[in-house]
Structures are given as C-alpha cells and as structure tokens.
C-alpha cells in the first residue's frame, strides 16, 4: 500500500487532519479513563461500580450486558449530560476570564501530544521512522514548555471565580506546579546528558531517546529505568504533582477546598477541566514511558524491530510497515494504559499530603535529590567517556 497520496496533500489539509485525529483519539481515551477511574475505584473498594445504564433501544442485543456491566453507556450518558445541562455563570465572576479558563486548560492539554511519538515503522529503505505529528528536535522541551502553560487555566479559574475556595485552590496549584516543574526538569537531564555525551547527536528529541534504548547489547538495550532508577522515581513523583493527582491533589482537595479551583464551574466548562486533566495524565505518562520505559519496545533488550523481524518469519504480513506501525502503537498504548492504571491505583490507595508536606517534599527533598542525582550522573558520564 502506498501512502504517498497523503503526503501530496497541501500542508494545511494534512495539519488539519492530524489535529482532528489527535482530538478524536485523545478525547475518547480521556473519556474512557474517567470511566476506568470509576470502575477501578469501585473494584478496589469492593463495589461493582456503574453497571446499570443501558439505552432501552439496545437492550435486546445479545451480549450487550457486558458493555452495560462495564459502564460504557453510563459514560455516554455522563458525556451527554455535560453537553445538555444548563451551564451557569455565577454572578460576580469575571466573565471573560471565567469562560477563558477552561478553554485555556484544553489548549496545552491537546497541543503537547503533537510532539509525542507513538510508534515507529521501517520505511522501504530500512530506516526507522517515527510516527509523530511534529518530529521536532526539541521534543521534550516543547512538551515541558507547552504543558507549563497549563497552570494559567488553574490560576485564572481560581481567580476569576471570585470566591474563596477556588482562589485558594488556584494559589496552591500555581505554587505546586512551579515547585515540581524544577525537579521534573532536573530529573530528565541525566537521560539527555547520556544520550548527548560527546559523540552523541545533540538532541532533545523523544524519538532519539527511544532509539537509544533499543541499541544492541546489554547496556544498549537497557531501559533508562534500570540505569537511572532515581531519575525515573523523581520524574514519576513530579508527574503526580504536575498532573494534580493524589497524593498531590492540593488544588482540588475536596475535604478542605470544596472542589478547589473548579468549585464554581459546572456542566460543559467543568468537563473541559476534567478532560484536560486526563489529557495531561496521558501525555505525561507517554513521556514517562518514552524516557524510562523504552517507548514502543515490547520488553527490555527486545526491540520492536527485532520482534517484528522474528514475527515476520512466522507471519508473512508482519513485515509490512503498516503492521509494524500498528504493533508499535498498540504496545505503546498498552504501556500508557498501564501507567494510567497505576495513577488510579495510587489515587485510591493513598491519602492526600498536607500542603506544607507537599512543599517540603518538593523543595527540601525532591529538589536536592534531583540535583545530587544530576551531579552524580554528570560525573559518571564524564568518567565513562574519558
């Protein structure tokens, strides 16, 4: 099959199609995550979770009760509710910023995914090509840059609501996000120092990180989580804080702030915040997997190319680039879903940290730890390349 007709299309059409594809993929995954969250919380707590809703029109379909038990229709009903519900704007809010905030929340959430590669395939020349919307050299920096804008949605929502709890939530969120951004950035530096060690390419591209983890040999095939466990740990903790997930969900912390920054929001605007949070989680775990868990490589020391070549011996169609691309995406998506499950698992296990604990962990523990980690690896890499 030839896809060259696609690349002959004008650029703007391609960009529009790719953008639409992102929205069409990310939105359902985010929505499914919200249902998964309810189901996982239910199972952890020994409940069945939502399992009743079913449109009467479909009730006759045999086997549909499985979907019903999984709460799929509940998800659709909830989504529909958000769209059709009255969307009130409380009196006394700053209308412009109040409405701008949820939109601002969506922009970074949806745009960071453009620089995240999902998979790779071998082109006819035998070269590995990433499947990514925009393969930029500064990949990781672009993700960090754009996702750091997400804090404004929270601050603005809190401020524009003209109400005390959202305001406190917004202030907490901004402090927390800024604090943990530092350790997050510092924790990934060793990875890139290693890749860009003298003689390396000089890049921040996420695709190259995965490439680096799929080299032959014992050290080449090791995922970074084995060679840099501390970096991975710091990154994971900072990721929890950056996505405002338990145990760091200070901005929302419903026991002391009602609903945090989105207390005054309802219906569709609230659902935008909700979807944005899940998009952040998806993109965040995607980056985490690319950096430390070998991206689309199925197992450590087993690369995608190897496994496709091995499969091609048994199944002839496996050599097709389309199959390889699909397999890569499937493996990567599987890893992302597991990581999201981990997020939820942690959320329904741990209590929330107190706010001063959050700040202490961020500034007095994680930051010095990540600096020490950076120095240690810098020295180590310098010695290795002596």
């Amino acid at each position, binding site marked *: 099959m030839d896809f060259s007709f696609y690349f002959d299309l004008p650029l703007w059409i391609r960009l529009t199609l790719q953008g639409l594809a992102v929205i069409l993929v990310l939105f359902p995954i985010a929505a499914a995550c919200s249902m998964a969250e309810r189901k996982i919380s239910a199972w*952890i707590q020994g*409940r*069945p979770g939502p399992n009743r809703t079913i449109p009467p029109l479909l009730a006759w379909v045999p086997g549909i009760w499985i979907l019903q038990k999984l709460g799929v229709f509940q998800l659709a009903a909830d989504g529909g509710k958000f769209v059709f519900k009255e969307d009130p704007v409380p009196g006394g809010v700053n209308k412009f910023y109040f409405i701008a905030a949820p939109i601002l929340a969506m922009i970074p959430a949806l745009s960071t995914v453009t620089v995240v590669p999902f998979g790779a395939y071998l082109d006819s020349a035998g070269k590995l090509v990433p499947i990514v919307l925009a393969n930029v050299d500064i990949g990781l920096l672009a993700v960090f840059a754009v996702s750091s804008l997400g804090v404004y949605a929270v601050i603005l929502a809190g401020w524009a609501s003209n109400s005390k709890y959202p305001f406190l939530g917004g202030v907490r969120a901004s402090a927390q996000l800024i604090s943990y951004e530092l350790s997050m950035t510092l924790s990934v530096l060793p990875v890139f120092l290693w890749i860009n060690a003298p003689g390396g390419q000089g890049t921040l591209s996420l695709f190259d990180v995965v490439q680096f983890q799929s080299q032959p040999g014992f050290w080449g095939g090791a995922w970074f989580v084995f060679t840099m466990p501390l970096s991975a740990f710091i990154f994971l903790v900072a990721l929890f804080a950056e996505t405002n997930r338990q145990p760091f969900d200070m901005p929302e912390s419903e026991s002391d702030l009602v609903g945090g920054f989105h207390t005054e929001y309802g219906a569709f605007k609230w659902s935008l915040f909700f979807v944005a949070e899940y998009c952040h989680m998806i993109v965040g775990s995607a980056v985490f997997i690319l950096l430390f868990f070998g991206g689309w490589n199925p197992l450590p020391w087993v690369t995608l190319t190897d496994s496709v070549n091995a499969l091609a011996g048994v199944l002839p169609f496996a050599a097709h680039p389309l199959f390889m691309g699909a397999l890569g995406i499937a493996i990567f998506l599987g890893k992302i879903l597991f990581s999201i499950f981990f997020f939820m*698992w942690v959320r329904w296990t*741990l209590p929330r940290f107190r706010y001063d604990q959050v700040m202490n962990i961020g500034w007095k523990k994680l930051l010095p730890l990540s600096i020490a980690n950076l120095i240690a690896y810098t020295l180590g890499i310098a010695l290795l390349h002596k």
Partner: protein
Amino acid sequence: MAVIQVERKPLSLAERTYIPQIIGGLKTTLKHFFQPTVTLQYPEQRPEISKNYRGVPTLVKDPNGREKCVSCQLCEFVCPPKAIRITPGEIPADSPHAHVEKAPQAFDIDMLRCIYCGLCQEVCPEEAIWLQNQFSMTGTSRAEMVNNKARLYELGGTLPDQHFKWDKKKAAEEHGNAH
C-alpha cells in the same frame, strides 16, 4: 491513674521516604481489586433486616384478625412532628368485635413528617402500632407519602401475641366479674 509518657520513636530513613508504606498500601488495594465485590445489588437484592429494626410505623391486627388499635389517640397526641391523624369511629354492634371500645375510622401517618422516633409505639396501650422492618418509603407525590389505614394494616400484618385482652375482658364480664 498515672500518666504514662509514651516516647515517640523517631522515624527511620525508609519510613521518612514514605515508600515502604506506599508499597504496602498498594499491595492491600491490589488484593482488594481482585476480590469479589461485597455490595448488594440493591433493588433486586434486599439486605437482611433485623427483627427489631425500627422502620416505618405500621398498624397490626391480632391473630383473630381484629384491629388492635382502639383509637385512643395517644399516639396522635405524643407524636412529636404531628405525623399521625386519627378519626375515631364506633364498631358496629353486629361485628364480632363489638365488645371492643372503639376502632379508628381513618388513620393516616404522614411519612413526610414522621421522624421514626418510635414514641407512638412506646405510648400505645394496645401494642397496636409498631415500627417494623420496612425501611424504604418512596412516592412521586406528597399524597402518596401518606399511609392511610388500609396501607398501614397491609404493611403491619398480624402480631402473633396471645393476649386477647378484650376477649378476656368480655369473658370476665360474662362471668359477672367486671374487674
């Protein structure tokens, strides 16, 4: 009693990183994740309600099918939120229960007012009103939430006690022994 000062042990390094505890917690929740659910599918499966549960107040009959209430209106009087309305009535002379003083003509308990305090049951001299194990009252209008006499007896059923106070009284009268 002597006050015992319990020394607070300093946390070990591992404890201060929170990690062992977090892993322990994750293990526990994962175990629960794979365990069967412990909840009831409510409208289909009903919970076992204990015999002495005090739910919706109801009226009961004795084993002979006589309504025990003699409409003394004590419950109406005692009911704190004034949920009970009783219209006393005479028992027709040809009824087999004609020897009983009175019976309610109408007996309404407004379940939107009732606070399930059980005072009516406590005050009733005839043990005619009982808070039983009916625990869910729903309706789509205010009128539906008022239990009338027929509904109260339907909910209440029969109380299998063997007192037959009024029959004994009648028998005693017939033997010329009014008290």
